């Protein structure tokens, strides 16, 4: 590295602070609004100093039953990610070990295609089968988000595990599937964490599928937030508190698994 002069250093840190502020600003503003009363929110000029209230959060978790939507989102995301691992890990292994590039592209297609082009047929079919507003319909649709992420991340993760490991086990008489189960999978912790974190976050954030396929019973958080503008009432404070509540878990996961998330995102498997 070339030595930097002091003014250059100052300029550099100013730039870093500026970038951070631009990124953070909407979050900070959302957070502060969530502690304001309705009258403080619609006050002009906007109030920087106000007496904070927990009323909005009480409303979100008390009256609005957000806990239920929270559970729905968790169940749908958890099942979708779990089942995607069940389907995706062997597929990713096969892609990696047998260099099935066409298959990789086929599964990647699910990540690239616009969700709405399958949503309308799903809606009709699920309605016919009486599966609307069930976890089945939601989990299946969210699996289409999670599965490509799992396969994409895991196949390149398996690529980084030397093939000699299974081969030596197979020389000792183990079957290949046993070697996969007993040797490869236990070594795949970091890859699995990456794919689980990312696919869970994208399932958690999904709006379009849940908006159409879920109703009262299985409604997920993004839909609940969107519906917060209810009949004859708009409650900005409540909406902001709801927005905080929905983003918090994804942000928490990101903080815990920061390294994994960066890795997964920069590998190119982004956004469901």
């Amino acid at each position, binding site marked *: *590295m070339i030595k930097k002069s002091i003014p250059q250093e100052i300029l550099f840190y100013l730039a*870093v602070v500026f*970038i951070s502020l*631009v*990124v953070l600003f*909407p979050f900070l*503003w959302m957070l502060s609004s969530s502690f304001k009363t309705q009258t403080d*929110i619609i*006050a*002009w*000029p*906007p109030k920087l100093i106000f007496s904070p209230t927990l009323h909005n959060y009480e409303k979100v978790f008390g009256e609005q039953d957000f806990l239920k939507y929270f559970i729905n989102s968790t169940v749908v995301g958890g099942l979708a990610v779990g089942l995607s691992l*069940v*389907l995706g890990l*062997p*597929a990713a292994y*096969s892609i990696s070990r047998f260099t099935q590039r066409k298959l990789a*592209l086929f*599964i990647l297609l699910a990540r*690239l*295609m*616009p*969700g*709405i*082009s*399958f*949503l*309308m*047929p799903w*809606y*009709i*079919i699920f309605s016919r089968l009486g599966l609307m507003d069930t976890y089945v319909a939601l989990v299946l*649709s969210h*699996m289409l988000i999670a*599965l490509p992420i799992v*396969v994409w991340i895991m196949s390149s993760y398996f690529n980084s595990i030397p093939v000699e490991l299974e081969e030596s086990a*197979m*020389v000792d008489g183990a*079957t290949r*599937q046993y070697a996969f189960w007993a040797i490869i999978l236990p070594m795949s912790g970091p890859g699995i964490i990456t794919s689980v974190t990312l696919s869970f976050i994208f399932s*958690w*954030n999904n*709006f*379009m599928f849940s908006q159409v396929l879920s109703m009262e019973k299985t409604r997920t958080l*993004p839909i609940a937030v*969107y519906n917060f503008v209810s009949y004859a009432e708009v409650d900005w404070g409540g*909406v902001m508190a709801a*927005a905080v509540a*929905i*983003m918090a878990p*994804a942000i928490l996961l*990101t903080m815990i698994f*920061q390294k994994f*998330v*960066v890795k997964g*995102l*920069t590998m*190119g498997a*982004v*956004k469901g």
Partner: protein
Amino acid sequence: MHQPSFVERHLRVIFPLPAILFIGLLMIFPILYTLALSFTSWNLTSGAPLRFVGLRNYEQILTEPRFLDAVMRTFGFTIFAVLIEAVLGTVVALILNRAFIGKSLAKLLLLLPLVATPVAVGIVFNLFYDPTIGLANFALSSLGLPQGLWISNAASVIPSLIVVDVWQWTPMITLIVLAGLAGLSEEPFEAARVDGATQWQVLRYVTIPMVMPTILTAVILRLIDALKTFDIIFAMTGGGPGYASETLNIMGFKYSFEYFRMGQASVILIALFFFVLLCSLGIMKLRASSEN
């Protein structure tokens, strides 16, 4: 070595089969179903039975000004948003590409917009853009500038939406480019410095050409996602005012779930599918050529 069993001999089929079946059932079959519907008159509101109408839906939709506008708008939004994201994202990555105090914190901050729920982001920006009580106009007026109408005006709605998209997705380009920069070998830089190149020359003739493939991959990935942008537009404007922010995705959604014109909606969905497929083929070509 043991005798391979049936399962072991066919592992290359058995292992991926469930995933293939799943995607076939949940994705390929519905797409074919949509294709079939696009040739029918099916309209849920009319209660009339489904009838084969040949290419009539295609004629109607492809000559419909609202559709053509939506196509142009979809591409306009995508191209401008991704262009800005690519430039900003690369610049920020180049700035941050050095050791400094708080680097891992800065990288964490960059991740936050990427994992923020888009619908919630849209709603937060809605309050931000509100012409009367929003912060955007307050900022303008305290700087002595004329106030704007943001998403309330047909002329400014798309740029305002682009700002949101840029805020949310620029960090992704930054992170990818940062990862690309970290993977570069030191040798060309050493060589350039030995040759007495200035910082700017190193940047212009060594760094940028070397990370270009990474930037391109990131851009194409973003292009495909931006074409499909739905959540923030739906949550912020629903395609309005009028149809001023109606992209293909939103129009397809309206035709399917508000107008219930399944036949015509299918044509729109297929058009969107087609555009995304074209871009995807582009990315695959590029990947293939960069791998060879």
